Every structure is written in C-alpha cells, then in structure tokens.
C-alpha cells in the first residue's frame, strides 16, 4: 500500500484540534454525567421524560450568575447563549427569547425567582446557571426550576459540570445540552458533532491551471454543527471535494486533485499519515468516497475498469486490500455517489441507466439492485442512520432536497424551491439536514429540520462558496 503524505503539517492539524476542542478527552473524563451530590430529581406538573413527547415545556433562561473575572463573565455569557441555541435547535424545549426576558430581575436561588414575571411571559420552567471560576477552570451548575403550580421553585433537574474552561466554553455548553437532552428527553443530541465541507474561502491559485478562469483552490474544512469554529483540514492548494466522516468522528476520506487527478485520500484528525486506499493513477480516477458505518471499508466511484468515460461503484478495505467493482455488469451506464445503509449491508447510489440520474440500492456485495426514485432526476443520496434517504431532486423549478422513507412510497420535498438546494447530509439523530443552498447568493450551507419547517432553516456559513457537506456520525470522543 502506497503511503502519501500531503502537504498538511501534522502539528498544524493537531493545533487546530486544540483550538476546536481543547483537552476534549480530559473534559469527558472529568465531566461527570452523574453528580454524586446531585439532589434527587423531583417530579413537577409537566413531566420531562420521553414518555410524554407531546409536551414541550417553555423554558426561560436568565443570565448566568458568575463568580470570577471579566474573562469568566464573557465565558458565562457565551456558554449561556450557546446552550440556549443548542436547546432551541432540537425543539424539545421551547426556549423563550432571551431578549424578551432580559428585563426580569435575576435571582440568587430558585426560591427567589420572580415567579409572577416568568409566568407572565409564558415560562413553565427557568433554566438557571451559575459559573464559578478558579484559575482557568470553571465549575458550572445548571438547574431547571418549575415556575407554575402550587410549588414554584422546585427543581426538576440539577447538575454540576466539571472540566469546563474559559477556552472551551462553547464545547462545554454543547456537552451540557447533549446531557440535558439525553437525561430529560432520552434524545441523542448532536451539539458536539461537526460538519466537514469544501470551501473556496481561502483561495490559492492552483498550479498548471489557466489564470483566466476562476481556478482557485478549494480545501476541506470542518466546523461545529452550528457553523462556529471553522478550521482547515487540507492546505494543498488544489481541488479537494466530497469529505466523508468515519464512525469514530475523527477519520475523514475525501477526493483530492493534488496529484493532478482525483483520488481518494484518507486521514485522521489524530494526525496519522494520509493514505490513498483506492490507488488512483493518472488514468484511474476515484472520487465520491463513503466510509462504511463500521469504519472498515470505503465505497467510491471509479473510472477503473469498464468503458472509458463510465464510472462504477467500487469498495476497498480501509487498508487498501480487497479492491472490488460492484457494478461491473452495468457497462452502459455510470454509477456513483454511494452511501451506506445504517447496518452497512446495503449501498444506495446514483445511476443514469434509465437515461436520467436516479437513486438505486443494492446489497453491499453488488447483488439485488432495486430502483428507488422515478423523478425527473435524483442524485447524491445520503442514507440516514434512522433509515431514510435524503437526496437532491431535480424538478422543472430547479433543485430541492427530498427525503425518501424506505417504508413509505412517496418522497417528501423538504426545501421550497427558494434558490438551488443540493447535497444533503443528515444528523446522526435523523432530525436535521444540512445542505448547500444558493438562496442567499453564493453557495452556503444551511440546516433544516426533517419536517421541513421553513422557520427551522439556519444559515451556517457566511463567506466563500461552500459545498459537499458531510455530518460526523459521532462527536469524536
């Protein structure tokens, strides 16, 4: 197996990791999910469990109480804002706009809360936070306090968190949100996951390409799921597209033209050497990688074998062994854009066999092919771990994101035809889709909820042209 080291400084990747989520392993270890001194969880009028999913309690959030210097106060403000956004994102709690509650006086303890004022703006619960700095570390305490009924001020949820620092205040808030969602709603939150994507936001001129076109480089970046902490992964001044995360949330595969032709590159955020398992050459081109759910295999599209100009779906083990063609018998059509089923035993892909691009699925050994879409054109499937497939739908009006449940027959269209909407990727909990949209001018990444609610659309990028998003299946801990 050939090993190729790209022009990525291992140190710079490691240092960007440090900035993105410093001391993440230590934060997890000292980040107690169960505080041994936590007061017992009490039941309130509104039961905060997944057994009652119809109830979405309305939660107000005053400023956090802070013991510490100005930097700690800044961290507390950031932590509260990020936590509010993380909770609002999953729509399990209806988060009351913090500006509209800004005038309500703060309270030192739950019993001192001005219940009447919180009731008046509609709160069922108040999320109180306190933050105490000692040196660079922060101790954070969260309490969810009931407002209504005959016993206002009783605590429905309380938790202390260690392992937060001023530098990782964002990551700390994400961890708290995930913990609250898991504990109170039995929901796997995605606040600590990342989006990998392609961007031309720092263009360099690619060598041996003409100057008169917009032939500027496109690199791979990662960012937090909410668009913060954008960090470069590649810096090879070439075209880098189509990143795919491995299940550990740290492995990344993508297609790069850094050798003057596209091939699959595999790297890890741990800084291990880059490899090229698909073994491309100047006459064998590989792209569209998808790492299997168990992390052992990579599916991709290749010009290897077959007729010139026609692509096939190939699979290779992560170490470069057992390279095999799954669609060799479909020699008159191009197959590409593979995506794995959650169990890893099937692959959905795009084929132009019927004369237009449509989505098919097959077993992971290439047998049992079945056509899934009958649209004008369908492309680029993304198979969610919750067992539905999001894809790019081409209609006369343009491109939109559609979702196909494998149990229902009719697909649902998620976006509403505003701009061109393509290349969906689904969150690990199946509740959100990130995609590329031109509705704000350039190519930007946006998030939409799986019910397609228009007010759930959030803009994630603001600079450059950003494409090929891929959502990490886990938070990489």
């Amino acid at each position, binding site marked *: 197996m050939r090993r190729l080291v790209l022009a990525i400084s291992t140190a710079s990747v490691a240092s960007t990791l440090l900035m993105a989520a410093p001391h993440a392993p230590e934060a997890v270890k000292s980040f107690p999910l169960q505080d041994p001194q936590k007061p017992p969880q009490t039941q309130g009028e509104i039961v905060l469990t997944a057994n009652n999913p119809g109830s979405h309690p309305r939660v107000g959030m005053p400023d956090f109480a802070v013991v510490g210097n100005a930097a700690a106060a800044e961290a507390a403000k950031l932590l509260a804002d990020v936590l509010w956004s993380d909770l609002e994102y999953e729509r399990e709690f209806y988060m009351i706009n913090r500006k509209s509650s800004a005038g309500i006086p703060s309270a030192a303890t739950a019993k001192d809360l001005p219940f009447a004022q919180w009731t008046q703006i509609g709160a069922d619960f108040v999320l109180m936070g306190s933050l105490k700095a000692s040196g660079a570390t922060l101790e954070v305490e969260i309490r969810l306090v009931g407002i209504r009924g005959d016993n206002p001020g009783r605590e429905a949820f309380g938790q202390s968190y260690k392992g937060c620092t001023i530098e990782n205040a964002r990551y700390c808030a994400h961890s708290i949100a995930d913990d609250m969602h898991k504990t109170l709603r039995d929901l796997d939150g995605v606040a600590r996951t990342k989006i990998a994507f392609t961007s031309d936001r720092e263009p360099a001129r690619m*060598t*041996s*390409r*003409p*100057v*008169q*076109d*917009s*032939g500027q480089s*496109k690199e791979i970046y990662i960012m937090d799921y909410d668009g913060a902490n954008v960090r470069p992964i590649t810096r090879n001044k070439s*075209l880098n*597209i189509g990143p795919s995360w491995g299940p550990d949330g740290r492995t990344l595969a993508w297609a790069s*033209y850094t050798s*003057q*032709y*596209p091939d699959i590159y595999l790297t890890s955020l741990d800084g291990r050497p880059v490899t090229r398992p698909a073994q491309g050459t*100047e*006459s064998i*081109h590989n*792209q*569209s990688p998808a790492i299997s759910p168990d992390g052992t295999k990579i599916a991709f599209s290749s*010009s290897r074998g077959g007729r*010139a*100009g026609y*692509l096939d779906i190939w699979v290779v083990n992560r170490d470069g062994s057992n390279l095999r063609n799954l669609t060799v018998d479909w020699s008159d059509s*191009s197959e*590409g*854009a593979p995506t794995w089923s959650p169990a890893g035993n099937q692959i959905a892909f*795009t084929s*132009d066999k019927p004369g237009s*691009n449509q989505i098919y699925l097959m077993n992971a050994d290439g047998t049992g092919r079945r056509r899934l879409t009958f649209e004008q*054109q369908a*492309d*680029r499937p993304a198979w969610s771990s919750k067992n539905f497939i999001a894809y*790019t739908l*081409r209609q006369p009006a343009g*491109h939109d994101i559609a979702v196909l449940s494998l149990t229902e027959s009719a697909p649902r269209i998620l976006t509403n035809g505003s701009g061109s909407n*393509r*290349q969906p990727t689904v969150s690990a909990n199946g509740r959100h889709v990130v995609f590329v949209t031109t509705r704000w001018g350039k190519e930007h990444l946006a998030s939409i909820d799986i019910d397609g609610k228009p007010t759930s659309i959030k803009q994630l990028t603001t600079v450059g042209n950003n*494409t*090929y998003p891929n959502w990490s299946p886990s938070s990489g801990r």
Partner: protein
Amino acid sequence: MKRVPAFTITLMLAAAFAACGPKKPAPGGPAPTPFPTAGASSATTTPNPPPPPKQAPEPPMIVPPDPGITSGDPLTRAAIEDINKDSPLKPVFFAYDSDVLDDAARKTMAGNAEVMKKYGTWVITIEGHCDERGTAEYNLALGDRRAIAAKNYMVTLGIAADRLRTVSYGNEFPFDPSHEEAGWSQNRRAHFMLTSK
C-alpha cells in the same frame, strides 16, 4: 540580410550545376558556360565548384542551428505556466448536457493536433468542464466524457494516446461565473492544458 555560411553557397552552386542536367555539348564547342549564381565569385570559370573555403580566414563561425528547431520560437523556451496563459491549444465547446463534438470542435482540434505534431514532446491534459446546472456529481461524470471524447478524436488525428491525459473538473471551475447562457456556454468545454514539454 541573414549571413549565409560559405559552404552553403557551395552547396547551392553544386545544386545549381546538378540542376542543369546533362546538356548537349555545343557541337565541337568548349565546356558549357558557367551557370550564373548570386554571390558567386568571378573566379568560378571552371565547371568544377570551388573547394569550400577554409574557416581560418573567416572570423570564428558559430555552428549553425539544426534546421529542425527554429531558435526564434518562444514556445520552446517558455515555461509551461506562461504557455498556458496564452496557449496555442484552443478549447472546444459543447452543447448543454452533451459530450458530442460538433464541426467547430473538430476543426479546432485539427489545429490542436498540428500543434501537438509540431511540438512532438508535449504532453497535455484535456480538462472536461461543465456549466453549473445539474448536480456536482453528475457534472464530474459529464466532464469526464467530454474530455475523453476530445482525447479519442485527437487520437484519430494521429496524436499518441499517451500524450493525452484527461481529467474532469465538473462544474468546480467555471471560466465565466455568470448565471446565464452566455456564461454557461463558456463553461461547457474541453480545455487543453500543457502538462510537460
């Protein structure tokens, strides 16, 4: 006027004499009159061409260039990057969603083939490009087919296949970023890039 080395004049004279062919000798007459040539010295009154003059009386002479390579051709000296900025190889354009070569494309590639024959060591990469309609993935495949279609035609014009690489950039690098047909038509192309000389 370009300086013509002396022995070249000698060769010209020799050719001139040879071009005369066998002439009928004048009846009973002497040897044929000398063939008039430009630059010939008045000493050429014999039928034999004068011997090539020795180099010694001349100033030191530069070895003349091999006529196969014209030293005045900037393309032999220029860097690949500079050549690609204003290339003798021209792009060919395609209709929407098509990899079919039309007459204009074939004519352009006939010109490109001449360039490739003139510079017999050049290796080029034919890039396939698409406009922004269609998905990125679809356009990567279409760009491939456009580049390969152009390569195959160049091969029929006599260019060795191993001098013609292909790559597809799909719609990633539009030559014209505008979002209408005037721009799109510029982006549906096979672009010929010099890769090595």
